[in-house]
């Protein structure tokens, strides 16, 4: 109990001082800005007051800075998970710990993940220790095509995980949309249009709103979608479903669309590029999981990129509550494709941007997050080597300029069982 008390006191102290945003200079490392530019040898990164002050090769180290020697190391922006459910789930199959969907709720678009994201969930600590510092957190769907408001979060070890609440609305318009809407894509599209039109009705006179279709709260939640005040993240996979989503702007010209998944995006890449709709794409999907994924290929992201699509890596429905640490491996695999004849990958610089600056930009946060450009939030990771390589380990993580504890229960279990044979006392006493 004494030990527990110590932990509580120290973590309370940490919570009380999120502005422990000291001035830090990380010197001598290979610096990756994250904006798609090439890594720089022997660079310096300075963070102060929670923000990046400077990063590059001609950087003056402030006199008051704590210096960290990163010679032989790599220094990058923290990993930005382009689509996730981090913080919404502790144990996937334990329903009481899983806040991704609300199967018995009467609400849909009004559901707001900001009230569910738990910064103390074990997956947050595990992925923080792996170098993931920010994430798009999206609700799933249950009784409607709309899932609710998503958020941008940080994975910091403090009380407040929300970087931007109500950052977007989430909707299913592919096969899942078909089932949520009652059994056809036609039903999904008419439901989409009808709900948005109802929202307009609501806007004209909220006090008189009385709809058979939806709750006033849901109508209210769709208004910023119609007006383009928040993004609409649309999960679709097939080429045809993608085209139908792009067409939505004929009826709702202000929609700020972002495609999610988009396994067949490469087949309509020119159309996506022309529509200037960005994509949070699954990196390594290459099987016909369903008929909406028939032409899935790992070259999807590379081909879309070559066609001029603004694309980043997302992980929809792919261990997206626990394994954001796969982001680096996925990006590395896209680089590997460059050596496979007829495949289209990303350059290393593009691949790293696809898990740092690109998702931030796509979510409208590029001036704040996702790179080491001056003024960005101080999310910095020091790695033992190439961050996309499987053998590389994380040495230090900063979020909002605050150095983070990398401890988590996986690490505690590992240490307890470093030698599995109990000693003089049972394992329960090994701490």
């Amino acid at each position, binding site marked *: 109990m004494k030990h527990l008390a110590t932990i509580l006191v120290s973590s309370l102290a940490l919570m009380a001082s999120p502005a422990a945003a000291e001035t830090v200079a990380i010197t001598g490392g290979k610096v990756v800005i994250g904006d798609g530019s090439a890594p720089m040898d022997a660079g310096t990164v300075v963070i102060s007051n929670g923000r990046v002050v400077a990063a590059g090769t001609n950087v003056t180290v402030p006199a008051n800075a704590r210096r960290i020697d990163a010679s032989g190391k790599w220094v990058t922006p923290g990993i930005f998970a382009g689509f996730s459910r981090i913080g919404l789930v502790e144990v996937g*199959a334990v329903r009481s710990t899983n806040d*991704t969907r609300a199967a018995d709720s009467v609400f849909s678009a009004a559901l707001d993940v900001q009230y569910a994201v738990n910064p103390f969930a074990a997956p947050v600590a595990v992925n923080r220790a792996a170098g993931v510092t920010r994430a798009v957190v999206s609700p799933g769907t249950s009784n409607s095509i709309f899932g609710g408001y998503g958020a941008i979060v940080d994975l910091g070890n403090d009380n407040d995980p929300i970087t931007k609440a109500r950052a977007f609305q989430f909707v299913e318009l592919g096969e899942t949309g078909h089932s949520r809407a009652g059994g056809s894509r036609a039903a999904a599209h008419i439901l989409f249009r009808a709900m948005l039109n109802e929202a307009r009705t609501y806007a004209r006179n909220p006090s008189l709103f009385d709809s058979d279709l939806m709750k006033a709260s849901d109508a209210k939640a769709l208004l910023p979608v119609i007006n383009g005040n928040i993004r609409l993240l649309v999960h679709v996979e097939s080429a045809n479903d993608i085209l139908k989503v792009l067409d939505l702007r004929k009826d709702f010209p202000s929609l700020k669309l972002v495609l999610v998944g988009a396994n067949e995006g490469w087949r309509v890449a020119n159309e996506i590029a022309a529509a200037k709709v960005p994509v949070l794409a699954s990196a390594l999907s290459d*099987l*016909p999981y369903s008929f909406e994924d028939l032409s899935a*290929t790992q070259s999807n992201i590379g081909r879309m990129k070559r066609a001029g699509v603004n694309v980043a890596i997302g992980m929809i429905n792919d261990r997206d509550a*626990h394994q954001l640490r796969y982001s680096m491996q996925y990006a*590395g695999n896209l680089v590997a494709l460059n050596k496979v004849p007829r495949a289209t990958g990303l350059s290393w610089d593009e691949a790293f941007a696809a898990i740092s600056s690109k998702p931030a930009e796509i979510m409208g946060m590029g001036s704040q997050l996702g790179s080491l450009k001056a003024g960005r939030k101080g999310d910095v990771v020091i790695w033992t080597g190439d961050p996309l390589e499987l053998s590389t380990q994380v040495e230090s993580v900063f979020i909002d300029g605050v150095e983070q504890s990398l401890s988590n229960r996986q690490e505690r279990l590992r240490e307890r069982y470093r030698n599995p044979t109990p000693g003089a006392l049972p394992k329960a006493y090994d701490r």
Partner: protein
Amino acid sequence: MEWKGLLAVVAAGALVTGCAATAAETETASASSASSSSESSAKIAFPSTYKAYASDNIVITGATIFDGEGQRIDNGVIFMSAGKIVSVGGPETVIPTDSTIIDATGKYVTPGIIDIHSHLGDYPTPSVAAHSDGNEATSPVTPEVWAEHSVWPQDPGFSRALANGGITSLQILPGSANLFGGRAVTLKNVPARTVQAMKFPGAPYGMKMACGENPKRVYGGRNRKPSTRMGSLSLTRQTWIKAQDYRKKQRGAKPPKRDLAMETLTGVLDGDILVHNHCYRADELNQIIDMSKEFGYKVTAFHHAVESYKIADILAKEEICSAIWADWWGFKMEAYDAIPENAALLQQAGACVVIHSDDENQIQRLNQEASKALADGRAMGIEISDAQAIQWITYNPAKAMGIADKTGSLKPGKMADVVLWNDNPLSVYARPEKVWIDGAMLYDANDPARRPVSDFELGQPGEGDVK
């Protein structure tokens, strides 16, 4: 596919049926190649019709070779002829004339990769309900079913595993809904019209068993036994008692009439069929070990054993393999204590490690999964060589599947199941360049004609694409 799987299950109003990530688990057991009466009847049934495809005399020179048994050869040479490995060695190795010589300078050679835990074919893609053939979830005790009778050879996943993962052999298991899930089958990863033409010649059968959450969830949810872990153990033991009784009668004056379930179970008791036991928690692994001793059989491998690290010493002593993921965790309660150092801690204790996929995606990069497990071990100070990590996905699974005398390492006389990698297979930047199965080149990254396309993908968008 964690959530995709879960959502599909919920939508179907059914409990986990399958494989894909959410609750998939399986196990196997292995056995010797001895033959008993039940085994001989099994051998007559559904025989393998696999025949090796045409092969040339191939010499690969200048490669870094991981031999599958923990050795590394720099600037190595490997000679394959008539579908077999003839010689493997350093640059001094004699190179026969009349051979095709492949200069692999800067490249790597490994044995064909082996996945001990796959549901390709019995949970194929497209993963529509009509294809859900992995769990006979109508009774918790179904040792009578055979996974091979569910395998759809046209599953596009086989060709992805070949081209992207260098998979040359794999074990297809029934799912984990049942305490006794049925027989597993070992396949060569060759495209074929029939499953029989994929069956690995001479491979022993496996039997899938399961403990833990899945059986009790599936049957407890229907108010049937088992609804608890103790219910599972009791039903499993009762079944073994029946099998022992059947076996006694088999050897008596009046043999009992044929019973498919009992034939499989007596095959295990006779040591002909290998037990592959899906089981997560350390305490449960230990219960299963005691049960196997009670009835006189051996567990060959615990599958999905995310808590093996807690009893690594016991597993080493019992000589039971742990077939595990590198880093899956948290998708259900019994996976909550999984840690990425599981493999390394087992290796440190001298226990057998197999890295498996149980997944149609990760089977395409088992080499990367092994690499992550290696890196996490090294980060905590455990010394493991690259070549030993390759053994986790080659020789060790071959041994646990009872085929290590035929494949799984680059030893003269073994099947020429070989992968040429364009980089170190433990690097994220590596991909298979060529894959040989029994000396036949069935994948070549440089030749579109050497990329298999299943019937399902023919005439579809993306047919023959690099994938």
